[in-house]
């Protein structure tokens, strides 16, 4: 009960203090706001690249064309081999007749040409489409399939896929690095801003010590204050991101430049981003206050 009362008072005092030291609070809040805005942009970029990468990765398929006159038992053997390969996510066998049907359905020109082909005359190949779990393994798996007896040609968009993988990887690393660096910089920036706030309140801390407040008693209101500053600082970035991203999303109809690059739908993505921003703001505010007040508790 006593602990609850003290805790409640700490929250009340922290809240009061934010408004009583308004100009300094405003400095801390704007500092948090500005950095969180940049963090928000990085997070949005990061998740969209992530999403785009995984979409592309899902689309990349290895197509293995089988030998012309392959026997059914040989096909079964290849299928079993592919099934047991570790990096394979799924595979799909298409007989040359199936492929013929599909092509005929897709266009009337094909239909005119192909309708008279008997099963023996069909020049198409039986094929197996393979999707891989990890796009970085695609090269190795393609090679393994190609080496199998009964497989004549393997295609997976060589060259282009490798380049894409490299580009995604770079963007990925850069955005992660950017977000981490920004969070660290924000934490120290806020810590220093709050240090100025606390410096002007050294007297308050001195009096608290004098009347018998324990170090924890002194720290908690300041840390709570950091929490409030962080939360207030996150308000504008959250509103700006939700509004801004939703507008951009609708303006571009959910895709950037081409249907190939799809943006993440604002819901629930924006809720996550808001929560992340609020969380970063609060943690960074609390850390900053804690780091700043620590200095004044030594005698």
């Amino acid at each position, binding site marked *: 009960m006593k*602990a609850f009362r003290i805790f409640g008072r700490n929250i009340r005092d922290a809240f009061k203090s934010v408004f009583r030291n308004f100009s300094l609070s405003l400095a801390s809040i704007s500092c948090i706001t500005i950095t969180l805005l940049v963090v928000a942009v990085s997070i949005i970029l990061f998740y969209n690249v992530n999403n785009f990468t995984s979409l592309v990765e899902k689309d990349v398929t290895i197509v293995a064309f089988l030998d012309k006159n392959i026997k059914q038992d040989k096909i079964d053997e290849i299928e079993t081999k592919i099934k047991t390969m570790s990096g394979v996510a799924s595979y799909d066998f298409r007989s040359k007749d199936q492929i013929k049907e599909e092509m005929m359905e897709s266009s009337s020109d094909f239909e005119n040409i192909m309708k008279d082909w008997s099963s023996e005359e069909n020049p198409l190949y039986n094929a197996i489409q393979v999707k891989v779990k990890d796009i970085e393994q695609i090269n190795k798996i393609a090679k393994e399939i190609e080496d199998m007896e009964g497989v004549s040609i393997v295609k997976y968009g060589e060259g282009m896929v490798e380049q894409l993988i490299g580009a995604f990887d770079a963007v990925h690393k850069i955005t992660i690095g950017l977000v981490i660096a920004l969070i660290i910089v924000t934490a120290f920036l806020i810590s220093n801003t709050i240090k100025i706030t606390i410096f002007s309140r050294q007297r308050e801390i001195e009096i608290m010590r004098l*009347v018998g407040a324990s170090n924890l*008693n002194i720290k908690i209101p300041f840390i709570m204050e950091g929490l409030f500053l962080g939360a207030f600082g996150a308000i504008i970035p959250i509103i700006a991101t939700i509004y801004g991203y939703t507008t951009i999303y609708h303006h571009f109809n959910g895709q950037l430049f081409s249907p190939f690059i799809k943006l993440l739908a604002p819901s629930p993505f924006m809720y996550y981003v808001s929560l992340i921003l609020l969380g970063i703001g609060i943690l960074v505010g609390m850390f900053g206050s804690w780091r700043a007040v620590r200095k004044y508790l030594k005698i």
Partner: protein
Amino acid sequence: MDLIRLRDVKKTYKTGVTAIQQMSLSIEKGDFVFLIGSTGCGKSTLIKMLYREEKPTSGQIIVGGIDVGKLRNGKVYKLRRKIGVVFQDFKLLPKATVYENVAFSLEVFGLPKDEIHSKVIKVLELVGLKHKIKNYPRQLSGGEQQRVAIARAIVNGPKLLICDEPTGNLDPNTSMEIMEVLDQINKLGTTIIMVTHDISIVKKMKKRTIRLQSGRILKDYAKGTFKDESI
């Protein structure tokens, strides 16, 4: 029974200045003691050690059963809760009302609201400021601010009240009013140690008076025996 006991206490600052030399002293519970002496004689160092703002270099200081020299930084608050301190510059929170300033020292204990309210009102009544609970320090006179500081220092019923030149910024009349408040607090059982430069107050109050010089006790006048021998 002794509330404060110093045995062979020495204090040398990092700068090499020795402020207190081999001092032994005891102060009984319920006493009212003046500490006098010229500037730099060690008065402030002595009381700072009593509330553990400074640590003795050697020797032992016991305050209310606590060995002050051995108290760790993190435990200082335990001593502070048994002691009230009043300063020349009042040290009030400028952005808090009279009521909040006094209630502040009870809130850190986690007392219930009603209890805090009744204690604060009672102590503000004692110092004669009940009608100004909603004022801010800047709206009060020096004497009134000092009363708030005294109220804050005694609201949790400390055994010891340390006053560092509480009348230093006040005119003679106001000073005497403050002294009456302190005398009343002393009569209610709180031990008081007061540092002062104001000999007229010492003469009028007729309390035990200790004169310091160069970090030593020059003279310890028992109650009512003080004579002004400074010149």
